[in-house]
């Protein structure tokens, strides 16, 4: 019997190491990262530039193979040697949000989203229904038939959030989703992202440079010199950051 208090983790990293280069010029970016994430948990990943945040997110996203260690998603261990199985994991279990929305410029918002849902194996009817619902929740209904170039940066990131959640992934990964937005727009986007990810009970990991965002998250993970540490509880941090920045 499963204990109710401690839910099964959806995403587990065990002893993940990552080095770039070979021979004399090996750069060890990640040194033994151990992590567990459970459903509906929102984490923020911080650290100086070049500390390996994107690298870690890429490994969690099955886009980059670790040099050592293992990654478990759901109840399966990820096989980093099999490209096609990595694609399968991304197709079904993962949602991504990038710094720029990276929508296909030649397709309407509706089409941009529909192809992702269809590719993930959803039926056309399911895609339609889900789109209606999510467009509504993210206040994007009027944008449905527009091209990405007709949207503002914040609107585009909201579409990106929708795209990341559409196929009901268990994990959503975002790399600096607000870096290209002004503070107010960025904050709204992150709040929406948190709200929707919690609603969908997805694991959420967000990389950001903006320390003002930290209080919004359940967990704060920090990388420096290849070592990942978990920081104080949110409540404590809130004070720390507001007094120091």
């Amino acid at each position, binding site marked *: 019997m499963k204990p109710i208090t401690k839910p099964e983790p959806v995403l587990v990293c065990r002893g993940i190491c990552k080095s770039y280069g070979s021979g004399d010029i090996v750069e060890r970016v990640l040194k033994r990262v151990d992590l567990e994430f459970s459903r509906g948990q929102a984490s923020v990943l911080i650290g100086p530039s070049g500390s390996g945040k*994107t690298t870690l*997110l*890429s490994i969690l*996203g099955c*886009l*980059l193979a670790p040099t050592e260690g293992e990654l478990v998603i759901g109840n399966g261990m990820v096989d980093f040697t099999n*490209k*096609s199985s990595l*694609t*399968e994991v*991304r*197709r*079904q279990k*993962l949602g*991504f949000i*990038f*710094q*720029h929305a*990276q929508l*296909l*410029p*030649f*397709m309407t918002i509706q*089409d941009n989203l529909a*192809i*992702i849902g*269809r*590719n*993930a*194996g*959803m*039926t056309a009817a*399911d895609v339609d229904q889900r789109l209606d619902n999510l467009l509504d929740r993210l206040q994007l209904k009027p944008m449905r038939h527009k091209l990405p170039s007709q949207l503002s940066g914040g609107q585009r990131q909201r579409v990106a959030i929708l*795209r990341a959640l559409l196929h*009901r992934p268990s994990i959503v990964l975002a*790399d600096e989703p607000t870096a290209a937005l002004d503070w107010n727009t960025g904050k709204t986007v992150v709040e929406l992202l948190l709200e929707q990810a919690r609603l969908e009970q997805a694991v959420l990991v967000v990389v950001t440079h903006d320390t003002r965002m930290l209080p919004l998250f359940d967990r704060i993970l920090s990388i420096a010199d290849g070592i990942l540490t978990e920081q104080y509880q949110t409540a404590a941090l809130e004070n720390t950051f507001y007094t120091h920045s």
Partner: protein
Amino acid sequence: MPTRLTTGFAASQSIASVIATKMLSHNRSRFFMTIVGIAIAFFLAAAQIGLLVGWINTNSAIINNTGVDIWVTAEQTATFDYGTPIPRHRVQQVASVPGINWAEGMLVGWATWRHPNGKPINVEIVGLDKSLAGKPAQMLAGDPEIIKQPETVIVDELFRDLLGVWEIGDEAEIQGKRVIVGGISQGVRTFTAAPFVFTSIKNAVTYTPFYREDEISYVIARIEAGADIQAVKSRIQREVSNVEVLTTAEFAERSVKYWMLETGVGITVIITGILGLLVGIVIMSQTLFAITQDHLANYATLLALGFHQNTLRLIVLTQSLTLGGLGIAVGAALFAVAAKASARTPIPLETTTAVSVGLILFSLLFCIGASWFSIRAIFKLDPVSVFHG
């Protein structure tokens, strides 16, 4: 939880074709220019092959038109146009071979026609026997029977200007002898630049310097119903001396091969045709590659978001077949127009179903080949690049 279908081929195909066509039509001017380019290249290739088919048809037209089974020729006859004299009594010899139902003669020889303005023109005289086998298939004016009259000939409407005769009753000279136009045929082209002039064998021997009174070029024969053509052929070969016996198909093939291969025109035309296709493949390859390069970041995003490499390749393939298909359709329409326009000229563009289907399939294969560089570019994509902007 909703049912999670795995993306089968049909689903990924429809996703791929949606992405492919929207990506293509996003840049309309490039889209249209490419189709125009491919259309012109395809037309070029089709026109060359159409020319070849037209020539082949011209070459073998009279042979096929004669409607006989067997041609008996002097040994080593290279082509219909270069008939060599054989004695007229070969007709009776052939006729008496068991299995032969009917046999007559035909004379093909060269002569000089004199235009009313004095200009000499080489013509190819075709002398027909009693039943007029080998007569023009279509007449613009007059009845072919007229050539049984002395000094009477049939010329083709295509060469009226060249020969300086326009109507029935017009006169000219062949080898210094008077001839009267008794009829005007339609669609009898020549490959040798010398127009065909039809008349009776009796008249023809008087116009052709190399033939004596009792000579002809060919014995043409039909076999009895149910007879084995090969058996009849070898029987003739055995019983009639100093001749070669060919079926109509063999004689047509020999004539065509002579003009296409021995003279080199066939090779020239084929090479030009292939060049046309190569131009097409280069245009296609370049455009596709440019489109793919423009969208590499988008492809990387799709890969990161869980699209399989195969789906992306399907996008490129769909684009190449869309561009190719439309280009070929436009090119084929151009060809149809050109073929129609050239139908009544001495140099027609013609085609057959097999040739058309073959060329289109071959061109589509070229299109698929042209997507190679683009597919390779996609194959090399690493989806991890999405995080690095």
